């Protein structure tokens, strides 16, 4: 900050016109100027206050930042080039102590509080730190040419998933870090495939790029920690030739407080939280972990969910045992469930009217997961929409009854599934011909049921799992509490 702006010896007042207390004491500032010397730093109007000889327009708020102004008016006395005392707001006795009789303010009330400094407006402090202060950020700074588009620079450096990212500037990163109390240099974990350590700061950078808001940070951190759970086998999921990618399902009050969608088009586009939280995980795996399609990511086709696949469960019915509750997290706590999900397969049933009918129908749809003649090659998520859920609810069925009934309905005689049966080569070994085979793991792992979707439409969704789940001791969906 230019030293010439501040007096070596004298008074400085920081004020703004858009502050009733500052305008109240305009006569005091004029009186102090006559007694002199007085410097006023005006945050919002170079013509305020009138009748003062030395008014500097602090439109960049650089002076206010360096002086650590929190409220206006602030009166500061300098002596021999250093601040020796200050008072915030209008308080006659304090002003008299610092500035003498010229600060008497005849006719004014004895006391009136000030207003917040512009330098502390939402988001401004981070911008000022980025411009004039010490950010404390440790990630490498990448210079972008003066005339280069930073969005293109991100593409050129391979930082994106094919869609534009938000350029990660210092002020955006600082704002994102304000969304968590965790320290920026805390290591969250090691990201596959390169097992690279990932700090909270790196999470914030990638969350910025994904388009997250700061209030999503606790969820993004929780999602990442769940993905790094060894049981989730993120590395294998990344490398697979299969379609699957991480499917993120959020439970708990945080879903509502950050504006997630569990209703109309819940699995589709349009909701910022849904879109960016899932995307942040993918960008972290790509950028920090080095998991890049065509390199270690060998997916034959992949699926669009590998851009982002994230939604919140509909918890509007207090009678419904949520997915997180079923998996051990008490209702009212925030939780993330990660599943190795393919794309969405629509399930249409507009005729079933009883729970029993719907179970048989759902079983037909679920049996197609992977291949109709394969069993135990991965589990599934069933997204149960309101109109289908109503059939169960009206029949008095609980979640666990649905799960148990599906498990029974998904049994098949081995002889129908062996290699070559029904003239289809795929299937199960001949040795299983005499057995009754389960399509999926037993509850609660086999079919993970989550409620979501709009109020109209007898369509639910089946999201098939990853064949890696067949090694169930080593690979499963995981549910973690979001702290």
């Amino acid at each position, binding site marked *: 900050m230019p030293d010439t702006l501040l007096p070596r010896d004298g008074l400085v007042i920081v004020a703004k016109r858009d502050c009733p207390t500052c305008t109240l004491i305009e006569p005091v500032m004029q009186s102090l100027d006559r007694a002199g010397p007085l410097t006023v730093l005006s945050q919002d109007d170079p013509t305020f206050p009138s009748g003062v000889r030395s008014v500097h327009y602090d439109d960049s708020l650089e002076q206010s930042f360096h002086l650590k102004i929190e409220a206006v008016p602030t009166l500061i006395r300098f002596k021999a080039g250093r601040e020796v005392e200050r008072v915030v707001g209008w308080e006659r006795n304090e002003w008299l102590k610092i500035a003498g009789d010229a600060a008497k303010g005849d006719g004014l009330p004895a006391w009136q509080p000030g207003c917040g400094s512009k330098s502390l407006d939402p988001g401004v402090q981070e911008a000022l730190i980025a411009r004039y202060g010490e950010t404390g950020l440790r990630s*490498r*700074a990448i210079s972008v040419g003066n005339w280069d588009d930073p969005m293109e620079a991100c593409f050129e450096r391979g930082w994106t998933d094919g869609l534009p990212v938000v350029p990660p500037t210092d002020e955006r990163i600082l704002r994102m870090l304000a969304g968590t109390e965790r320290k920026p240099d805390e290591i969250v974990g090691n990201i596959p495939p390169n097992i690279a350590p990932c700090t909270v700061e790196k999470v914030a950078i990638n969350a910025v790029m994904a388009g997250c808001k700061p209030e999503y940070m606790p969820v993004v951190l929780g999602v990442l920690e769940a993905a790094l759970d060894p049981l989730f086998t993120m590395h294998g999921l990344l490398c697979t030739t299969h379609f699957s990618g991480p499917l993120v399902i959020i439970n708990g009050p945080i879903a509502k407080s950050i504006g997630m969608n569990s209703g109309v088009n819940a699995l589709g586009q349009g909701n910022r939280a849904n879109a960016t939280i899932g995307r942040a995980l993918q960008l972290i795996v790509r950028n920090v972990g080095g998991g890049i399609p065509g390199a270690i990511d060998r997916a034959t086709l992949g699926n669009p969910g590998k851009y982002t696949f994230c939604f919140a469960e509909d918890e509007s019915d207090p009678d419904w045992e949520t997915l997180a509750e079923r998996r051990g997290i008490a209702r009212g706590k925030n939780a993330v469930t990660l599943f190795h999900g393919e794309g969405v397969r629509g399930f249409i049933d507009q005729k079933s009217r009883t729970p029993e009918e719907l179970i048989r129908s759902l079983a037909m749809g679920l049996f197609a997961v992977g291949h109709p003649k394969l069993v135990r090659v991965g589990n599934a998520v069933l997204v149960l929409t309101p109109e289908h859920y109503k059939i169960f609810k009206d029949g008095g069925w609980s979640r666990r009854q649905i799960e148990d009934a599906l498990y029974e309905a998904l049994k098949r005689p081995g002889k129908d599934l062996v290699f070559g049966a029904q003239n289809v080569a795929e299937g199960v070994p001949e040795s299983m011909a005499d057995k009754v085979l389960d399509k999926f793991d037993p509850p609660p792992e086999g079919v993970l049921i989550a409620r979501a979707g709009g109020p109209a439409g007898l369509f639910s969704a089946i999201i098939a799992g990853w064949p890696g789940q067949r090694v169930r001791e080593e690979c499963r969906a995981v549910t973690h509490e979001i702290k």
Partner: protein
Amino acid sequence: MAYVEKLRDPTAETSPTRRARLAPPPSLEGKTVALMDIGKSRGKEFIDRLEGHFKKAGIATKRYAKPTNTKVAPTAVMQQIAAEAQLAVIALSD
């Protein structure tokens, strides 16, 4: 208009910030070399000479030109070169 000057690296920072150039191929056998005339005077003569050298060495070439030396080549020309050749010589004469 000047944009922002600094971004923070989202990666694990195991690669240098200055990106390495693409390594040249071990040999030109089977490759096509694009010869692009940037439009300066007598450029054609210079590229004719270059083309002669490549031909002597048995290396296939294709000729391209950009409409003016004062601007970057049009996207269509660059896309055509990328589709039809594996290396490029961008040449001028004055």
